[in-house]
């Protein structure tokens, strides 16, 4: 009989090592496997976090590594939290977060609900809908820059076709009032398929017999939707919102490609401002404090959200 790979490996193991491994308990073997991952996690996640907290209390500048580093206490935090410009970026981020999440949830769930029905070409349609999500954000940013062109962009012509507003009379990326909506539209176009896929998984996990039982009890379609479909898809939907919420809070590439934070600072999201402070103005201590503020906000929100998610799942 041919030797298996495990047999060959066992024979190749030096006898001294084999004796040592044989003596290990299950718990010890588990630790042997887990330790490299924990060390890696400590090295690339925990240590930088602690270091960032330390830097946030200093005036350190990464482009001047030999300059004297002064302990400035809470000065960086005070400056950030009294700066009207940073306040403005927080509002821009809140606008972006709220509307993208709302549109993505409503459109994503609706699409999933429609796709969940059995019809011809269902698979092909699902693949086509999912395509935007597979593109690079830089590509999507470029792509939408062309679509938003006032002279040649398809988006403006579509608006003209449906509303009668002349295509060249407005610029989505150049207008102070329209630019925040332009990034919302592009992000919604790109990431709605993601929410749809998660909702679709939720909808497909609902067994048919529940609906059959509801039909026997003569429950209306409306009642079936609100008392069965929505509660059973809710944990999936909440998970999608959590993922998209965290991702959109640190949205960078798509917006930089589309508007670069402009016009003025109307689409300047926190991540873009943070990058400018850290790697253009080289105020490392200040940007560390900024990063810590964002981290605590996301961490706090994610904590209560995960708690709520667990409660919904327990129901």
């Amino acid at each position: 009989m041919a030797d298996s790979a495990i047999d060959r490996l066992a024979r190749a193991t030096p006898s001294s090592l084999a004796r040592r491994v044989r003596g290990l308990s299950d718990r010890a073997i588990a630790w042997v496997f887990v330790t490299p991952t924990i060390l890696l996690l400590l090295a690339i996640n925990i240590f930088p976090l602690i270091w960032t907290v330390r830097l946030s209390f200093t005036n350190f500048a990464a482009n001047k590594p030999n300059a004297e580093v002064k302990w400035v206490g809470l000065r960086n935090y005070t400056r950030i939290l009294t700066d009207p410009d940073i306040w403005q970026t927080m509002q821009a981020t809140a606008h972006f977060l709220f509307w993208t999440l709302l549109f993505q949830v409503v459109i994503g769930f609706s699409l999933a609900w429609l796709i969940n029905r059995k019809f011809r070409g269902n698979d092909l349609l699902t693949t086509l809908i999912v395509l935007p999500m597979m593109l690079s954000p830089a590509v999507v940013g470029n792509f939408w820059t062309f679509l938003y062109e006032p002279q040649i962009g398809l988006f403006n012509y579509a608006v003209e076709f449906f509303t009668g507003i002349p295509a060249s009379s407005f610029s989505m990326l150049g207008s102070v009032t329209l630019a925040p909506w332009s990034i919302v539209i592009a992000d919604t176009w790109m990431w709605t398929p993601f929410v749809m896929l998660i909702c679709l998984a939720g909808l497909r996990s609902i067994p048919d017999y529940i609906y059959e039982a509801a039909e026997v009890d003569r429950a209306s379609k409306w009642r079936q939707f609100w008392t069965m479909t929505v509660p059973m898809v809710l944990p999936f939907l909440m998970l999608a919102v959590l993922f998209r919420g965290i991702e959109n809070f640190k949205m960078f590439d798509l917006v930089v490609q589309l508007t670069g934070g402009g016009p003025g600072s109307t689409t300047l999201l926190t991540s873009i401002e943070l990058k400018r402070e850290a790697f253009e103005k080289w105020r490392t201590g200040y940007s560390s404090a900024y990063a810590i503020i964002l981290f605590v906000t996301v961490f706090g929100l994610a904590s209560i959200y995960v708690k709520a998610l667990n409660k919904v799942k327990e129901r």
Partner: protein
Amino acid sequence: MKGFLSGLLRLRRGPWELLASCLIGLGVFMLMQPFVLWAFTWSFLVTLTGTVMFIITSHFPE
């Protein structure tokens, strides 16, 4: 309300987590609201207090 207060006094997880969650929510709202700058200034302290409280109270008994 009486149950909530007695839960707080007896250091039970539920009411304390609720309180911490409210603080985090309030802090995030203060951070992103467009109305008054002073709320933005104090938002981080409120969020941080809520987050630390949430981490501690999630280890309280049910």
